[in-house]
Structure formats: structure tokens, C-alpha cells
């Protein structure tokens, strides 16, 4: 019942995650952070089983950071995504696989090339221009298909994101009330507001 969204624009990735922590039928928290910074330019967003997802993502976060320290330069988005995939794929065949669905958004600090990766709990990794994780897929993919352009600027991407969020508000049974919006570009990751 969680939703993650991502839109890759011309030189940035705009992402949104709901801020709702749910246990059974209870909304436990309305300002839950479902993202982790892997390094200055790569953001990992997760949804799935509560404990699993935080545990797994923090494990990935620390290893990506360790890798950056050891080598002296940070992991690229692609490398981080593939590292995550291998870890999740190995866990899939273990006794207790992590039940976690991910979006990985990143932007190369030198070239400014944005990248967005989609990965499910089975560890199928796919690079996509726009991606939705969770039930939101059934509501937002069509909206994205219709309005998405690869050369979008931030304002246009924000407008599209608003359309998607609105679609969820109108059609999805859960009231998310709050979303966290973040932009990943070559200058780093920053939280923004969709006015």
C-alpha cells in the first residue's frame, strides 16, 4: 500500500515517496522517510516489509559508502544499482529473502546525466524513464505514458508529478496526505515542495 514515483528529466530525476508508515490497518506515522542517500548523487527509495526494507537499504547504503571511501571516488548510479541487484538476488535464494521494492535515482556529478532504475523484490532491475513502485503503478503509469517527454525541465516534471499524485488522491483508496519530493541532479539531492 505504499507508493514511490520517479521521473527522469533532461538533467535531473524528480522523485516522490509517500510518508505513511502502515502496520496492518493502522497508520503509525505520517512523516516516515522511505529514502536513503547512497552517496551525494544517488538516492535509494524503498517500499515493502517494514523491517526488511530499512535493514536492507541501510546495509546497501553503508556498503556503497564504504566502497566510495575505499576507492576514493563515489559509485555511479549504474554501479550502485547493479550492486544492489546482486545483493537482493543473492538474498532471494536464501532462507529469508528481503521483501523490498526499490527505485534508485541518480545523476552523474560530472556529466549531469540522470538515471532512474526500477527494481522489485525479485531483483529484476530495469532502467526506466519514469517509474512507479507499488499499487501506484496501476494508476500512474498511464498518466506518465501520456504526458512524459524525455526532455522535460523541472517545472514540467513537477506538473506531471502533480497529475500523478492527484490521480492517486482521486482513485486510490488510501489517503497519503503527505509526500516527500526530492530532486537528484548534478549538484546533489535536495528536498523540494510541490506548491
Amino acid at each position, binding site marked *: 500500500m505504499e507508493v514511490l514515483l520517479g521521473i527522469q528529466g533532461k538533467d535531473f530525476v524528480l522523485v516522490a515517496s509517500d510518508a505513511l508508515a502502515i502496520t496492518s490497518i493502522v497508520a503509525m506515522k505520517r512523516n516516515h522517510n522511505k529514502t536513503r542517500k547512497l552517496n551525494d548523487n544517488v538516492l535509494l527509495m524503498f517500499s515493502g516489509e517494514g523491517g526488511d526494507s530499512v535493514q536492507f537499504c541501510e546495509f546497501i547504503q553503508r556498503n556503497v559508502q564504504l566502497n566510495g571511501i575505499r576507492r576514493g571516488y563515489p559509485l555511479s548510479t549504474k554501479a550502485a544499482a547493479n550492486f544492489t541487484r546482486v545483493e537482493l538476488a543473492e538474498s532471494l535464494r536464501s532462507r529469508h529473502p528481503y521483501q523490498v521494492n526499490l527505485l534508485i535515482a541518480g545523476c552523474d556529478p560530472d556529466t549531469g546525466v540522470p538515471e532512474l532504475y526500477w527494481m522489485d523484490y525479485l531483483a529484476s*532491475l*530495469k532502467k526506466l524513464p519514469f517509474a512507479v513502485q507499488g499499487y501506484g503503478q496501476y494508476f500512474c503509469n498511464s498518466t506518465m505514458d501520456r504526458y512524459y517527454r524525455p526532455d522535460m525541465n523541472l517545472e514540467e516534471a513537477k506538473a506531471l508529478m502533480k497529475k500523478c499524485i492527484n490521480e492517486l488522491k482521486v482513485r486510490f483508496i488510501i489517503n497519503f496526505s503527505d509526500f516527500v519530493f526530492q530532486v537528484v541532479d548534478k549538484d546533489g539531492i535536495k528536498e523540494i515542495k510541490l506548491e
Partner: protein
Amino acid sequence: MITFFLVLLQSGNEYNGGAVVAMVGKDCVAIASDKRFGLELLTLATDFEKIFKMNDKCYIGLAGLATDVQTLSEELKLKCDLYKLREEREITPKKFAHLVSSTLYDHRWGPYFCEPCIAGLDENNKPFICSTDLIGCINFAKDFVVCGTTARELYGICESFWEPDLGPEELFEVISQSLLNAFDRDSKSGWGAVVHIITPEKIITRHLKTRQD
């Protein structure tokens, strides 16, 4: 969790969908796949190729659960490259087929949910194709091999269209028409196709535009 694996055992091969076919021609082989990537009936991407190059004369197509397609393709590429470093020659398709088979059988009791089709030319440029099941039982074929959710449709149409000693261009036409007409009757495959023709001199790769439904 246990139920999840039981579900996978039944439908692992049908979760993401896909179609792969390989055919023998006269001094050439062809291998083709669709490009859909989906979750059951939801299509997520239409640029997901299921054919991987192992070397200039050996390709493998993997249809099945996408995560295993990715894992297995990477594992096999690694093994092929290590073989090349150790033996200082390229692996032949037949040896590669046995490598695939034993790799799959290593996971006998927790298999990779994908069925490979292998196509290539051996050291004498003789065409070779084969397919295996998900635990590595090899099927050496002289005509064509198919796998994926579209397997039945492909069997029917390939049986009608294929004939011996087709040249590269004729083979391209036959494999394309077979694949296109077959996956148009399968809701889990389609959305574009890619065809590779392997000849002793060169590899011809073509992307086909198809109906998007």
C-alpha cells in the same frame, strides 16, 4: 514466504512473460526474442532484450523470470570470459550448452526460472542450436528451438514455416514472421522484437517494429 515460492514454482516462468526462438539455416543460425518486460499483465518496459552475446559465434536467449534472466546471463558471461582467459580460445556453442546445462543443474532444488535457447556456429562454422529446460536437460535440435510463454504458438508456426537450408535473408524472414505471428496471440509477449543472424562473416542484428498491444 513458503506460499510465495510455491506460487513461483508454478508460475515463475510466466510472471514476466517473453518469447525466444532460434533456427538453423544454411551455414547460419538465427535467434530472436520479443522485447517486453512486464509483471504478469502489466507492461513496464518495451526495451528488454532477452538475447545475450557470449562471443561472436555464440548467443543465448533466456525467457522466464526477469531476475533470473539477468542473474543467469551475467553468470554465464562471466564463465565464458573465464573460459576464454584460461583456454585462450572462444567457447564453442556445444561446450557452452553443456556449461549452461550444468550451471542450471547446480540449482536443481531451487532452480533459476528460465529456459535458455542457444544458437551459434561451431569451430567449423557448422550451425548449432539447442534449448534446455529450467534444470538443464538439453534438447539438441536440427531445425528450431523455442521457449517462453509463447512456446506453443511458436512450435505450431515454426513447424509450418521452417525448411532446411535457408540462406541468411530467407532465415531472417522466416524467423521474424514466425515470432511476430506467434506473439501476437500471446498477451505476455510482444512490444517489439530483435533478431540476430549469425553467419561466419558477420552478425546481422535487426530490430522489428511490431504492434503495441
